[in-house]
């Protein structure tokens, strides 16, 4: 098509000898097409590049972290005889001692003190807590044997998952030859196996990788996000509606507008410092709690929500407003009855974006003491809590090798949390969205 036009144009220009506009157009046409093509290729390349980076990031996280969803357990038969459990106060019994006796029973040929220490270290210190829980729940009557699948130590776990090699010299791995032999014995007896790591999803933080879980941080994040949402959504929307619909256009409102836009770009640590000075030092709120964390993050997300909400309000066509005013609605009725419902999907999107940002923050929380080692799972807004990104940071900084995979697994949980939050936003938007 373009070829034939070029051909005819060439003929016509040749015959008349005058320069016509069409000739100039045709002359440049090829390079213009080339330019467009190049532009499209650039665009495509950048999309591909970001997709490759994302795929690389995700696959490295998944590759590093998937093994954390499994944990090595060892089956241990624990003989519990009368007298071993403290009759008056079962909580005070020596559960560690009972577990050690059970381990010695299973390996009767290990007698040297140094060897028994090495032997005990195959098992996690969580074994005693597991036994304690079981015994306290239903106290054994008389002599019984309790069969338990207890977690293996993190070094054994690394060995079973192939992160530690067996065929290297003894000095180059963290388990000794003797320990390897004991593990082989457990393997031939089918007493050691990898199982789904429920601890990871039910426990709080721990310094023992095999006992560490993300649940405490998930709950901490949850409470913090609730505080943030409950405070920032009504305040943000009220501010946006006022600024967009009621506020007079003068220097004061311009000033406020500029400041809100600037606040959205303020580094988040600044909000943490503000939180420390105002909420902790001045109001004396409890340190390290989701209440304070939520308020600080609310300050951070407010500008995002206000800006997005204002954009959503602006996008409502004036015809809607005018029609409502035309049939006699008051200004408040127009806003609450017509403008707000139409702008709500956009506002929700802005809120979710702000919340997602808040979910990934650690810097402001550092200042108010939420970057902390917290084992107990928070039960409310004023219990000390950590949040998921903090947990990831703390694990990434731990010396034990087994925390590497747990760090990646925690990132996966955080991403899942984010994706589900975004999914809720998409569903809500689809439900409320109205098109003209």
């Amino acid at each position: 098509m373009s070829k034939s036009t070029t051909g005819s144009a060439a003929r016509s220009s040749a015959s008349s000898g005058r320069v016509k506009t069409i000739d100039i157009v045709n002359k440049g046409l090829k390079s213009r097409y080339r330019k467009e093509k190049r532009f499209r290729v650039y665009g495509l390349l950048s999309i591909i590049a970001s997709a490759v980076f994302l795929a690389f990031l995700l696959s490295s996280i998944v590759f590093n972290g998937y093994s954390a969803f499994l944990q090595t357990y060892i089956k241990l038969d624990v003989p519990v005889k009368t007298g071993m459990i403290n009759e008056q106060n079962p909580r005070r019994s020596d559960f560690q001692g009972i577990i050690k006796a059970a381990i010695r029973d299973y390996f009767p040929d290990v007698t040297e003190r140094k060897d028994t220490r090495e032997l005990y270290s195959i098992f996690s210190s969580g074994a005693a807590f597991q036994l304690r829980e079981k015994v306290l729940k239903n106290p054994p009557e008389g002599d019984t044997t309790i069969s338990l699948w207890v977690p293996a130590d993190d070094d054994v776990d690394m060995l079973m998952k192939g992160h530690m090699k067996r065929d290297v010299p003894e000095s180059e791995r963290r388990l000794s030859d003797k320990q390897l032999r004991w593990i082989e014995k457990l393997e031939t007896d089918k007493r050691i196996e990898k199982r789904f790591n429920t601890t990871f999803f039910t426990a709080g933080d721990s310094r023992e990788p095999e006992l560490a879980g993300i649940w405490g941080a998930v709950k901490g994040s949850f409470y913090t996000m609730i505080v943030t949402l409950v405070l920032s959504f009504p305040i943000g929307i009220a501010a946006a509606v006022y600024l967009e619909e009621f506020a007079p256009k003068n220097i004061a409102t311009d000033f406020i507008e500029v400041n809100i836009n600037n606040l959205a770009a303020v580094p988040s640590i600044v909000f943490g410092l503000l939180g420390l000075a105002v909420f902790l030092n001045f109001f004396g709120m409890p340190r390290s709690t989701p209440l304070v964390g939520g308020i600080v993050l609310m300050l951070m997300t407010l500008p995002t929500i206000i800006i997005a909400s204002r954009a959503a309000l602006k996008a409502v066509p004036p015809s809607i407003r005018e029609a409502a005013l035309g049939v006699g609605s008051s200004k408040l009725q127009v806003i609450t009855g017509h403008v707000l419902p139409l702008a709500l999907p956009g506002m929700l999107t802005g809120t979710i974006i702000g919340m997602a940002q808040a979910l990934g923050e650690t810097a402001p929380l550092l200042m108010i003491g939420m970057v902390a080692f917290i084992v107990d799972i928070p039960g409310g807004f004023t219990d000390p809590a950590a949040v998921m990104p903090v947990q990831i940071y703390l694990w990434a900084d731990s010396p034990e090798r087994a925390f590497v995979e747990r760090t990646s697994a925690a990132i996966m949980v955080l991403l899942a949390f984010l994706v589900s939050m975004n999914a809720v936003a998409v569903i809500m938007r689809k439900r409320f969205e109205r098109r003209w």
Partner: protein
Amino acid sequence: MKKTVTLAAFMLLLAGSLSVIGCGPKAEQPANENQTAEETQSARDYISIVGSSTVYPFATVVAEQFGKTTDFKTPKIESTGSGGGFKLFSAGVGIEHPDITNASRRIKKSECEMSAENGVTEVVEIKIGYDGIVMANSKKAEPFSLSRKDIFLALAKEVPDPNGAEGALIANPYKTWKDVNPELPDKKIEVLGPPPTSGTRDAFVELGMEAGAKEFAWIKDLKKKDKDRFKQISHTIREDGAYIEAGENDNLIVQKLDANADALGIFGFSFLDQNTDKIQGAFVDGVQPAFSAIGDGSYPLSRPLFFYVKKAHAGTIPGMNEYLEEFTSDKAWGDEGYLTEKGLIPMSKEEREKFAKAAQELTPLSCDEL
């Protein structure tokens, strides 16, 4: 007229319902929060600990053991750095202030006096053991054997002019270890270490670089004459790329060492202990970093670790005495205690007994001792 009244009533209703929708759950929660906030105001039922990131890995293990084996709540531990910990700790007495601060150095006189000014008059000092700072490289290469003088010459920003007169300083000219000391390998100087905010860096500079600088008699004399100048010479690390600040994440340094066999890394002993399959510690002044060598003080880059207890809180915060008991028990900090498994280097038996007694009796420290 009637119309306006109904309209006003409607609007009121609308506003009311809106505020209920908007604030309903909120109105309920603050009530709850205030209640629990008041409860925590009147009594905190968990121990609050702040302080050094070096002590953090040990304190957390004790806290976890304590939380799981007793009926008390698990203490909350923040890693704020030694200086940050003292600042929070010395702010006052009362449940909004921490009960214990961990430190990778002794409390300074100024910090002790500031505490006293803020009403924290009785502070109990407990030494918990030692930490070694190691310089390590990949197992794929030969282990390094350095003296502290080598460390100073290789890493200081300005070094004494090898050809010049006494007292002359030049910008560090050394590119390879062989330039520093002919006995060392002909490898580029490449050291990965912590940034200036880190306590490990402070200790490394003090124990390694400063001691190395003192090998030069005139620099040593400078310490008495011009302390600031002395500090400037001995504490400033070169910035021309030979020393690479690798961030606070020691795991990252270990990974980088594994990938680059020529590089040396600086970090706490516990990371060497956990990664013996990948890296090896350099000999410093002929001593290899090992439990025994750090514990008896023959390895030069070792420092004591402490924690400080606010005596006034011991009666009001539940579990304080029990936590101290757990920390100072032999099963925790003893020669074969669980802290040694995490890389803490235990003290001698006499020292342990001394500080266990201090923990039991809560013997306060006097600022004049410092």
